[in-house]
């Protein structure tokens, strides 16, 4: 049977649950050995990604990525985090903030595969499409 990175991540998570110190180190070393034996070392990033998703799900953590043209103030940051916490019924929110001049204005919020794009760039693109269709 073919083993996917998701399968390995689930197995690692279950094996390491409640372990710490030397036990944890030994377990992780053995996990890497399995990846090497199964020639899956190239998929280690996918395994880590899947492991992080499992951990986030179990601990009620949401990862948010915010991109804006001129940065977001601290008040707006905490308001955004609270809003996301409420929407996704999450316990923790880990947020990353980026600046991108090309967006011109507004803000783009990404949580998992959901995106709320309220930037001027996006609005202009939509206007362009609208005018092409109207023609």
């Amino acid at each position: 049977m073919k083993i996917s990175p998701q399968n390995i991540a689930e197995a690692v998570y279950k094996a390491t649950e409640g372990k710490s110190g030397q036990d944890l180190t030994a377990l992780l070393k053995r996990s890497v050995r399995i990846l090497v034996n199964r020639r899956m070392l190239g998929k280690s990033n996918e395994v880590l990604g899947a492991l992080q998703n499992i951990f986030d799900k179990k601990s009620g953590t949401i990862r948010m990525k915010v991109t804006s043209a001129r940065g977001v103030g601290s008040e707006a940051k905490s308001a955004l985090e609270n809003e996301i916490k409420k929407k996704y019924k999450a316990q923790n929110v880990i947020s990353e903030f980026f600046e991108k001049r090309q967006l011109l204005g507004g803000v783009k919020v990404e949580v998992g595969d959901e995106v709320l794009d309220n930037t001027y760039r996006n609005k202009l693109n939509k206007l362009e499409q609208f005018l092409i269709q109207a023609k």
Partner: protein
Amino acid sequence: MSNHIVENLKKEIENFKAEIKVEKVGKVIEIFDGIAKVSGLSDIKSSEMVTFQNGKGDIQTGVALNLEEDAVGVIILGDFSKIKEGDEVKSTGRILEIPVSDSILGRVVDALGAPVDGKGPIKASKAYPIEKVAPGVITRLSVSEPVATGIKVIDAVIPVGRGQRELIIGDRQTGKTALAIDSILNQKGQNMICVYVSIGQKDSKLRKLEARLEEGGAMKYTVIVNASASEPAAMSYIAPYVGVSIAEYFMDQGKDVLIIYDDLSKHAVAYREISLLLRRPPGREAYPGDVFYLHSRLLERACRRNEKYGGGSITAFPIIETQAGDISAYIPTNVISITDGQIFLETDLFYKGIRPAVSVGSSVSRVGSSAQIKAMKKVAGTLKLDLAQFRELEAFSQFGSDLDESTKKQLERGKRAVEVLKQLQYAPVKTEHQVVTLYALTKGFMDDVPMEKIKEFESGLIEYSESNAKVFYKEVLESKMWTDKGEEQLKKAIADFKIGFMK
């Protein structure tokens, strides 16, 4: 002038409302041979349309086919060389749609409904989804109106009705496309819209075909959907569904449509290519397990709807190419079992000079006889049996020279029947003329006409009867009836013509 443009633009912009909502966005993780593996898009549905956006503003369309645990397999419709790993992919929540309108008639479009004939854009009035559930039993009407193909052997022996699915099957170079084109040419003035779907064929062949239709004045009521051999397999895969969507647009207006899929063997091959690239398990002849469903869901959309549900019909002529006459291969048997009959073309007959090379013994129309007009039914009733008996006697007579009188007579009649059913390409014959010829044949008027003069007799008789059997023509054309009075007049006209002809 510039003020006017600015004012117009202002008005347009005032109508614009930028709706911002949460969108599902995924990322391309792998791209190869027209297939993309996409991460994210957790709520996507099978056959949903997605759009690929790279940073430069190029937008490409795709269709989600494989829904896996951690990725989605998408076929890309168009040039996939512009899409790269990491590009954004958005789900649309809609099935792939194509623009349709009445102005699509006379045009050549690609598998996405965009014009490719250089005659400018087509203004769309509606968008039709390419995948639709076929009409149910309650909405349907049984087949009762004929499709006049103009090909004598088909109209007489293997009649096709409106709403029927009749397979055209045969080896390469046996005249499958020619039959289909002749049928389109004969629809002039028959109140029929034609859709020709070209799948995986050379552009040059299609160009010739379009020119032929244009020359015959058939492009006015025809739409050509082209997914040529040079385009990716995804285009060949969706082309027949696009064709039937265009047909449904016209059927929804209560019109009758004839659709030709040329050919479904190449369609199956394109689907096999896509399925193998998507790593679906291969089955018989390496086709995926759902290749039957691929064709059945397409052909089930051909139907005749009752008046309560808007009327109209879609008659389908799928074409299948066989290898060395093997009709028991996987795809031919599948499509034979789906359709309401098949027209089998044989290489041997083709090289014997019997063209169209229809093998009457292997061809069948399961529902068409109820759509035949009375006059045709009357004259062609025993023709199939006569031809079958002739073939048997012909094989038997090669062993001996002493044959009794009735056998000789039967052989002579059979030879004449074969001769009468021969027909040149692009020369469809009107139904009423077919009736006259077949009446003369089955009633024995041609028995003593020399074989080499049969064609001459036929054309002369048609011309003569038009002016000397007016009652008969009126009955056949207007009331589609067959009365003793009309028959008497026709019989007399044939007898009179024969006296003059044999002198």
